[in-house]
């Protein structure tokens, strides 16, 4: 008798907090999704449906006009769209990500499996580079890039993102390779593999998750970056998409539907990466907090 009645009160006691728990979590989820709701409903409204007092209302009819405006701009008013900068960002982000991955992987390999006196100190000194405010290097950077004939070019942006990406990519790969048993490396060396042999036949085949984490991390942060994009591009023709969005939202201040459509276009690539590869994105995020 008592054995049967015992679970009942515990169950009842547990149920009510569960409901409250879901309620609280849902309210918080609404806070996080509110801007998404606004972006989506506003971007599919036509301009005459957009007004401050009805901004939260669902659209009465669907219109993709704002996406066209955001993408193509309005040549008559001298407003350039996002299409060109979208391509600029692609041209910037792909080479920068690929080079970053290769560099980071090799650096991580050296700093984990070929340590030398002072290599740990060197690593710490490299890591400092990912925390500095870029304002503290901007003036020399502009001067140097001009001297290198890289200022105001996508190649310049690629170069800058690769250089300032060295600390984080090295960190992620180093921490990843530290987890690969040194015995494997030694076994490879006994079998006659040299530096590149060990890398090619032992580390590289195990590196796929490391490459995915670093590629996603670099893709996301370079795509979303703003300060370098703003400084290093002196003309609209080559500016990346974040800078273009900022300009679009400045020039079409009242055309909220165009702004929101533009914001969605900018957010889409990284959001897709997050939706499909969120696990790896999270790993990169945690690596940034040093503890791996």
């Amino acid at each position, binding site marked *: 008798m008592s054995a049967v009645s015992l679970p009942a009160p515990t169950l009842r006691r547990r149920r009510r907090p569960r409901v409250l*728990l879901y309620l609280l*979590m849902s309210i*918080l*989820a609404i*806070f*996080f999704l*509110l801007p998404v709701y606004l972006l989506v409903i506003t971007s599919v409204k036509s301009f005459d449906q957009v007004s*401050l*007092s009805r901004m939260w209302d669902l659209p009465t009819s669907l219109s993709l006009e704002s996406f066209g405006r955001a993408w193509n701009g309005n040549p008559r008013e001298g407003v350039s769209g996002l299409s060109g900068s979208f391509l600029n960002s692609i041209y910037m982000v792909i080479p920068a990500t690929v080079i970053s991955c290769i*560099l980071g992987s*090799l650096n991580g390999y*050296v*700093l984990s499996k*070929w340590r*030398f006196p002072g290599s*740990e100190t*060197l690593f*710490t000194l*490299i890591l*400092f*580079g990912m*925390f*500095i*405010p*870029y*304002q*503290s290097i*901007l*003036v*020399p*950077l502009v001067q*140097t890039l001009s001297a290198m004939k890289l200022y105001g070019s996508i190649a310049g942006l690629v170069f800058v993102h690769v*250089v*300032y990406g*060295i600390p984080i990519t090295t960190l992620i790969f180093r921490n990843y390779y*530290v987890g690969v048993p040194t015995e494997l490396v030694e076994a490879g060396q006994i079998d006659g593999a*040299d*530096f590149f042999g060990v890398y090619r036949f032992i580390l590289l085949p195990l590196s796929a998750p490391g490459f995915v984490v670093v590629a996603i991390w670099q893709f996301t942060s370079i795509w*979303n970056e*703003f300060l370098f994009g*703003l*400084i290093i591009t002196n003309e609209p023709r080559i500016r990346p998409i*974040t800078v273009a*969005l*900022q300009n679009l939202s400045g020039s079409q201040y009242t055309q*909220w539907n165009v*702004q*929101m459509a533009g*914001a969605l276009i*900018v*957010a889409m690539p990284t*959001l897709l*990466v*997050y939706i499909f590869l*969120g696990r790896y994105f*999270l790993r990169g*995020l*945690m690596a940034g*907090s*040093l503890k791996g």
Partner: protein
Amino acid sequence: MAQTSTQNITIAQTKRRKRWLNRDRLTAILLLSPSVIAIAVFVYGFIAWSGYVSLSNWNTLTPDYSFVGLKNYQSIFSSGRFQTNIRNLIVFTAFFLISCLVLGLLLAVLVDARIRAEAFFRSVYLFPMAVSFIVTGVAWRWMFTPGDADPAGINLIFHGLGLDFLNGRWIADTRVWPDWYPDWSKTKIGVPLAMIPVVVAAVWQMSGFTMAMYLAGLRGISEEIKEAARVDGCSEWKVFRFITFPLLRPITLSAVIILAHTSLKIFDLIVTMTGGGPGNATEVPGLLMYTLVFSSNKIAEGAAVAMVMLALISLLIVPYLINSRRSDVEV
């Protein structure tokens, strides 16, 4: 006899040296060197260069490296604008940090409560991290546009919920609370109300990251310790207060470092949401540096602002880096 022993030593020495600096290790060092040189030049060299610019007279379009000592620092620190910037930075950092930690911990505890749809909620709380600050700024700027005649944006939601007393001017609010203006200060001391929307947007973006950090910490705490405490008659709250919470302290420290350094560097979000306005009510050093250098041609003063930012961040990061490396070596 003696000769052989010296010979042996030399052989042993060369052998050891050979083993150390062999072809592979040389390759390793050579391979690392481009990155090391790049960091040496583009991080340390450029910082030194900027530092020198901040001590120079370069406040016109053409470079002028003549040494003027701390003049630029004196002029920025005594300007009301920079003092306002520092005030804004302190306010932003304090509110941002505390809100992210509290909300992040709350989210982590909720997600960790073994609920259904855990993955869904976790993804929803974390997705803003994947979005650019510029996108965040564009979306939240509109939500915090007060509207002139009728309530707009967030005010409209408050109106709908019957919470009209929360109605505010948000990003257009010029007030500072409390309105304290002592003789020794060239700026009003207090919270610039226009900073609140910026903090909300920043917390929206970064609290999920704090949650992820705490979640990793919570998952690392063994269930046995907690169970032992429960057996001893501890309530869930006491388990959290006396076991979970103290064990999360290293996570809190890491989170504070990461969040604080992000907030000291904040630039993109402010540019998009308020552009530093109204007036200079939300301007921060990251933005002031940009304006000084790229709009006003006050290169040296801008460099001085950047050096102050770097100093603040270094105070935070250097001890953390040294410490985390030291503990890392043991692993």
